[in-house]
């Protein structure tokens, strides 16, 4: 179910600007990997290359290989639409579809892909909402608009929407940066539960969060503004936060970063 991701020699561009340079790493199946690093170092760009969302941005272009088990996401003949069904994504700001009810939001990925059987949908919606720890809060108002929920609930709704299509990998781009501590805690607990079923990659600016939720942590940095971002090191989270092998990582984590 959960898949291994093997990235080798990956660079991403915005038109002529190189945003990330020659990144290689392995993301283990069924684990949580956190990406940390200063703003503008290309964490989010790198994350978006993992489900081919980077090329949606005008001028976006990728070089290199991303192997999902034994298939290259950027191989010839690979349909980005299929890739995105396999690798789901949760965004920084909660973005439920404003015209749809809570139920329709969760069912959106399935409905828009042509699954219309009510009984099947009912089951999946309930399972996904339970999976996102939102079922008890919304089960009595499934037909109300999703935009009427609180920010934390909306983000969990978006997670439910993402896991409803049964992806194998779940990418999260700073999923808690717009949420209060209680909602953040709810989502962190949720990540702990979800990692048994999905490979999870999470971008975060919150070092404590990376330490709490992730098994492995990757530190990204850039040498100067306008230079491409680079992967400095990736290691077990415990080791990164106690005894990193690169001085820059230690400086960043302990707040001595320039």
């Amino acid at each position, binding site marked *: 179910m959960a898949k291994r991701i093997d990235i080798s020699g990956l660079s991403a561009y915005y038109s002529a600007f190189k945003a990330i340079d020659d990144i290689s790493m392995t993301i283990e199946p069924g684990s949580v990997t956190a990406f940390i690093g200063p703003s503008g170092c290309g964490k989010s760009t790198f994350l978006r290359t993992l*489900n081919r*969302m980077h090329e*949606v941005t*005008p001028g976006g272009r990728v070089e290199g290989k991303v192997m999902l088990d034994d298939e290259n996401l950027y191989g010839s003949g690979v349909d980005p*639409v*299929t*890739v*995105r*069904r*396999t690798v*789901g*994504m949760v*965004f920084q*700001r909660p*973005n439920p*579809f*404003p*015209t749809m009810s809570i139920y329709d939001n969760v069912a*959106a*990925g399935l*409905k*828009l*892909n042509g699954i219309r059987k009510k009984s099947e949908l009912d089951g999946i919606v309930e399972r996904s909402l339970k999976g996102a720890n939102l079922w008890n809060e919304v089960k009595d*108002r499934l037909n*109300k*608009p999703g*935009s*009427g929920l609180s920010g934390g609930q909306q983000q969990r709704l*978006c997670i439910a*929407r*993402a896991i409803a*299509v049964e992806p194998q990998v779940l990418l999260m781009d700073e999923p808690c940066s717009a949420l209060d501590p209680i909602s953040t805690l709810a989502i962190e607990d949720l990540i702990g539960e979800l990692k048994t079923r999905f490979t999870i990659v999470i971008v975060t600016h919150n070092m404590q969060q990376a330490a709490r939720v992730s098994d492995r942590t990757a530190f990204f940095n850039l040498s100067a503004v306008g230079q491409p971002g680079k992967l400095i090191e990736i290691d077990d989270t415990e080791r990164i936060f106690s005894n990193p092998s690169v001085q820059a990582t230690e400086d960043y984590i302990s707040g001595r970063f320039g």
Partner: protein
Amino acid sequence: MSDTVMDARPASGTPASPRLASRHLPRWSPLAIAAGAIAVAAGIGAGAGLSSHIQWGLIALVLFVAGSYAITARVEGRRQAKDRVATSLVWSSFVLAVIPLYSLVETTISKGADVIDGTFLTHSMNNVLTIQPGGGVYHAIIGTLEQVGIATVIAAPLGMLTAIYLVEYGKGRLAKWVTFFVDVMTGIPSIVAGLFILSIWFVALGKAPASGFAGSLALALLMMPVVVRSTEEMLKLVPNELREASLALGVPKWRTTVKVVLPTAVGGITTGVMLAIARIAGESAPIALLVFGSAAINTDPFHDPQSSLPYYIYEQYNNGNQPSYDRAWGAALVLIAFVMVLNLIARFIARWKAPKAGR
């Protein structure tokens, strides 16, 4: 650390902070200044023997703005005075803009309402002498509905698809050219659109058109750029995050456009289409060139001349006698009501389809 208490008192030598409250004019003062300005203006106008009341009004306006600035500046200060001047300018511009609108509606209703009755709405001008009262606009209403309807069926889908292309897919040279030509088309005078269709008709069929359909083509030409522009603006308002959310679920781009982007923007798009319809419903020049007008009922838009409401107004006015003038006013009122109903429908749809935030 914990036993350090911040000193809340200001350091000695800091000047006392200014009082927050200041002197204020009473709430009725703008009214009083306005009344004073009008009284003085009336005095000046009468004294100088100005006959035009518009001049009196303008003098009152200038006095009001100057007076409120002077008085407020004395009592409240310069910034508040500027605020008052800006406020009074905005209000007087609003009043100036509303006066013609009010006068237009009032004139049309007062002159047109008497003519409108069951007979007027259900009879044509067939076999009615123009110098006699009687007759009606039934044939013109049918003509307008059919011509505008066909034009909408042609222009609305084309315009919306063009806008979808421009916003969702278009990049590079083709999109730039399309945008340019849409801009050019927005400025085409209606008579030119009519002449264009007329020339095509002659080249293709070798005779004068004389059908409602030919008029519809010209109207569609006028309507399309308006639809493109308004739809484009509405699609641009749809947050990019929604498109990304949908794409990230593995939904193909065309389905994202149809199921996520369009429903989010449908209220605004509908309003835009309705406004475009309202714009072409009042066109008379292409109708005169291509549809010719008719006194009789013709429900077939593809053969033989038809009438339409704007053309009917023009025709009746040209007759030059009182019963015809009355009918022209009546038809004008019907046309205004038609456009008004369209606008109300558009507003209703926009509100009904708008993204909801309720719990």
